[in-house]
């Protein structure tokens, strides 16, 4: 099987769609010749030129707004923000414009735009460059939110997101960009949004997660296996639409749930998933729902503090074990 990095998965999906469809274009800060701050768009400017791979000024309002306006006029823009943290600067265009237009206009407009947002901590970039803000966007009706964990999914989900007629926030984890994972070349194709993936089968507990924490969950599952606990790891892949069926099936099988994300725990999207499980599948559970997340602090700079604040495999393992005490 071929190996591909997460960044390559994203890049190849963009390349494929740009080759296929002249209405697809990419813009953002330093995405051109520089190849993007994390090298994700390397080579695309050389292939598609200034018109279709555009460096923008540092103007996040204009970046998101240009995606909204050009999508409203029939293009399929992919806009990149250098860090998800800068979404704050373009938030009006996303929340009040992109998310609301179709509804306000009585369904009479399509917004086939993708907003790519590198997210998460782990690189010592401190409080303004390390956040996980997916709860902000999953909260807003009208936005779809996708968060792949590996190259194959990144490729397939981005292919779908680009063609989707709705604004899609495509969250990327910057620690994963260089992570190589197996890719089945015959399966390099669009993946429907709203379909979770079982990353590991198990029978005793469901670890439901996405993004970088899928790998932490797999590490925890290995440790737990040694202690006789069989953990299932469910990679949501798409946060909205969310695969409720996959969640129901897993919970129905294991009767125990641990939800994991890198967001600070207060107000995290995992809280909403926990509430849905409690409301709808309460009688399938035989233990409280547990959540693992970052501490309720900004992300600190010093390496030790950052690792303490962000969740890791050990935290997942401990949360699972607490259900079996």
């Amino acid at each position, binding site marked *: 099987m071929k190996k591909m990095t997460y960044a390559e998965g994203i890049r190849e999906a963009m390349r494929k769609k740009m080759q296929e469809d002249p209405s697809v274009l990419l813009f953002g*800060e*330093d995405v*051109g*010749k*520089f190849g993007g*701050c994390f090298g994700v768009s390397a080579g695309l400017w050389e292939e598609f030129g200034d018109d279709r791979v555009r*460096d923008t*000024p*540092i*103007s*996040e*309002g*204009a970046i998101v707004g240009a995606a909204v306006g050009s999508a409203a006029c029939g293009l399929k823009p992919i806009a990149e923000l250098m860090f998800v*943290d*800068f979404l*704050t*600067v373009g938030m009006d265009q996303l929340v009040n414009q992109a998310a609301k237009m179709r509804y306000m206009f009585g369904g009479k407009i399509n917004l086939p735009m993708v907003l790519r947002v590198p997210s998460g901590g782990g*690189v*010592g*970039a*401190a*409080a*303004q*460059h390390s956040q996980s803000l997916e709860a902000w966007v999953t909260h807003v009706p009208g936005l779809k939110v996708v968060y792949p964990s590996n190259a194959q999914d990144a490729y397939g989900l981005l292919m779908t997101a680009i063609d989707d007629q709705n604004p899609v926030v495509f969250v990327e984890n910057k620690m994963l960009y260089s992570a190589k994972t197996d890719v089945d070349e015959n399966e390099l194709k669009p993946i429907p949004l709203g379909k979770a993936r079982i990353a590991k089968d198990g029978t005793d507990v469901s670890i439901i997660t996405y993004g970088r924490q899928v790998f932490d969950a797999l590490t925890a599952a290995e440790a737990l296996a040694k202690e006789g606990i069989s953990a299932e790891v469910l990679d949501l892949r798409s946060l909205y639409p969310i695969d409720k069926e996959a969640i129901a099936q897993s919970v129905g099988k294991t009767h125990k749930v641990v939800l994991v994300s890198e967001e600070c725990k207060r107000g995290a999207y995992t809280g909403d998933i926990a509430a849905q499980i409690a409301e709808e599948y309460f009688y399938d559970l035989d233990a409280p729902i547990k959540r693992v997340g970052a*501490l*309720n*602090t*900004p992300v*600190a*700079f*010093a*390496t*030790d*503090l950052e690792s*303490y*604040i962000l969740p*890791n495999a*050990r*935290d997942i393992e*401990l949360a699972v074990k607490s259900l079996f005490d």
Partner: protein
Amino acid sequence: MKITNEQLKDMYLTMLKIRKFEKNAMDKFAEGKIPGFVHLYIGEEACATGACAALRVDDYITSTHRGHGHIIAKGGDLNYMMAELFGKSDGYCKGKGGSMHIADADKGILGANGIVGAGHNIAIGSGLAIKYRKTDQVCVCFFGDASTNQSTFHEGLNLASVWKLPVVFVCENNGYGISVSQKRHQAITDISVRASAYNMPGITIDGNDLFAVHEAVGEAVERARKGQGPTLIECKTYRWRGHFEGDMTVYRPDGELEAWMKKDPIPRVEKYFIENNVMTQDEINKLNAEVDKMIEEANKFAVNSPAPSLESALEDVYSDIVEEGRVR
């Protein structure tokens, strides 16, 4: 503006501190001792130095991601700065902020900033506080060329102008926002022309000329102190290093860096000193050695400072709440 020889020597000392602090940060980053992102100020020393020399301790500045020079020029402590870069408990931010977030409230340093364009409006707030309290302080807002494409730049200049706030906007035009040259990010060459849109004085100067910076900012500061409102000063300069350490600068045309290195602000001052009997070459050498020592001290201080305790991560989120930790 009249400058005494003592003031001149002070400014020269500041430039040396910045240059040597940055060179050291460059080395320590390469050695893997500094995590995260480091944006160096080498080549731009005259801007921060000339501007801050026109300020008092009780004046304010806002800074940027490329903030070490501003902080040193406004009187920041080299030991605390270096310890912060190393992520140590004795650092300015107790290791929580790092290179991009150093602040010193006692010296009016309202923080380096990781968000491009955030300072423009923080400076407005600072100007408002000054005006409200009817003191004669000022706030100098430092920012890069590429940040002038954020809406905050326009919001900030407009409000400063219409409220006549004591804010001096000092743009460090180094020709790039990361890889994107000024030509490609805005359709003007002199950013100072934007002042006219807000009916405030605007001027473009050689940012590698310490005296020119000091004079222009000094005049703007005097106007601001007298209640005559804001000024936009554009300093043309150049950063010698990549945008951040590790940037290979593939976007630079051949020869550009070399041409700018010839305009190094530091030898220009040295030459003036010798020609005008401000300092002898011997005295210059001695001062250089002294600053080398300061940097060595700062390194020692940083290395010897303990790592922050894990519990410290839970403090300072609020003034009155300590957050919950975790057991691993």
